[in-house]
């Protein structure tokens, strides 16, 4: 077999890049880039407030967005791989590489959700090992995702996760002082709901194809509105 020349490699790479850019993935890349940028701006924009106060709520809030950025990085990575190789299912075609990437995506996603929830609940949840429990639960969710390769299992895991989050947010808000749900709780519930739709979009390809644009635009709106709130409050 003739060795590949520099020009041939360049041509191959050029074709690959062209394939990526022409396969309708541009929107996916822009979408991921905006969400990652928003999350990192929130993380770094609140650094000074945390350094001055060492406030636990601020710490968990920042970590949630760092995990969102990492999760979205792996999410976009999975999407690019699927687009590039024109496959619809990651684990079947790339068993080892796919398992690692999907594991990281699910772990960071779950951690982001748990940390954001904990940022508003840390005063009420006094148990010392809460963070350890989050890591263990996230590891369990990620492992289950890799082991049970069934769309039904994926849907059940995510529905259970969302039910837990919604119940926690509802119970925490069901206090005599707070009669009306604040904007923040509505934004967080929407963020959790659309985040889970984003996860389902990765795990069960084509399941939400019809609503993909709507999910992407709403998710962008939610992240941008949180970033706007952060910028407004931190000047």
């Amino acid at each position, binding site marked *: 077999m003739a060795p590949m020349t520099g020009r041939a490699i360049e041509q191959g790479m050029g074709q690959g890049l062209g394939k990526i850019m022409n396969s309708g993935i541009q929107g996916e890349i822009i979408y991921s880039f905006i969400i990652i940028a928003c999350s990192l701006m929130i993380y770094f924009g609140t650094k000074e*407030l945390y350094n001055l106060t060492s406030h636990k709520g601020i710490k*968990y809030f920042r970590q949630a967005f760092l995990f969102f950025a990492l999760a979205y990085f792996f999410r976009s990575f999975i999407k690019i791989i699927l687009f590039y190789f024109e496959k619809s299912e990651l684990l079947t075609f790339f068993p080892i590489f796919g398992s690692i990437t999907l594991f990281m995506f699910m772990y960071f996603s779950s951690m982001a959700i748990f940390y954001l929830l904990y940022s508003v609940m840390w005063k009420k949840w006094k148990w010392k090992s809460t963070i350890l429990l989050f890591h263990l639960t996230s590891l369990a969710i990620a492992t289950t995702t890799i082991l049970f390769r069934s769309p039904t299992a994926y849907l059940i895991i995510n529905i259970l996760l969302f039910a837990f989050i919604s119940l926690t947010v509802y119970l925490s808000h069901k206090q005599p002082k707070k009669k009306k749900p604040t904007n923040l709780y509505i934004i967080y519930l929407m963020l959790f709901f659309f985040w889970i739709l984003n996860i389902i979009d990765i795990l069960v390809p084509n399941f939400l194809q019809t609503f993909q644009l709507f999910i992407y635009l709403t998710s962008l709106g939610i992240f941008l509105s949180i970033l706007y709130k952060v910028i407004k409050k931190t000047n």
Partner: protein
Amino acid sequence: MAKRNKLEIIRDILKIIQNNHSIRPTPLLRKSNLSSSQFKKYYLELLNKKFIKETYGKNKTITLTEKGQKYLEKYLTIINFIDEFEL
């Protein structure tokens, strides 16, 4: 009077130092309305975080550092941020 939270107590201690430019530990303890054990805890924390510094002249005095000044400037922003996100 409502119980002060940690951020308010730190703000109050720093404000007392700022208003006096430099102050000795005993008057600071008196003005801060804290028990001596509580005061010691906060005092050490402020020293560790470099919000205040001790100066040794005729007496030991406490002054505000740039970081302490920054905390006072940012206090309202911090409180508004914590309230906004219910942290």
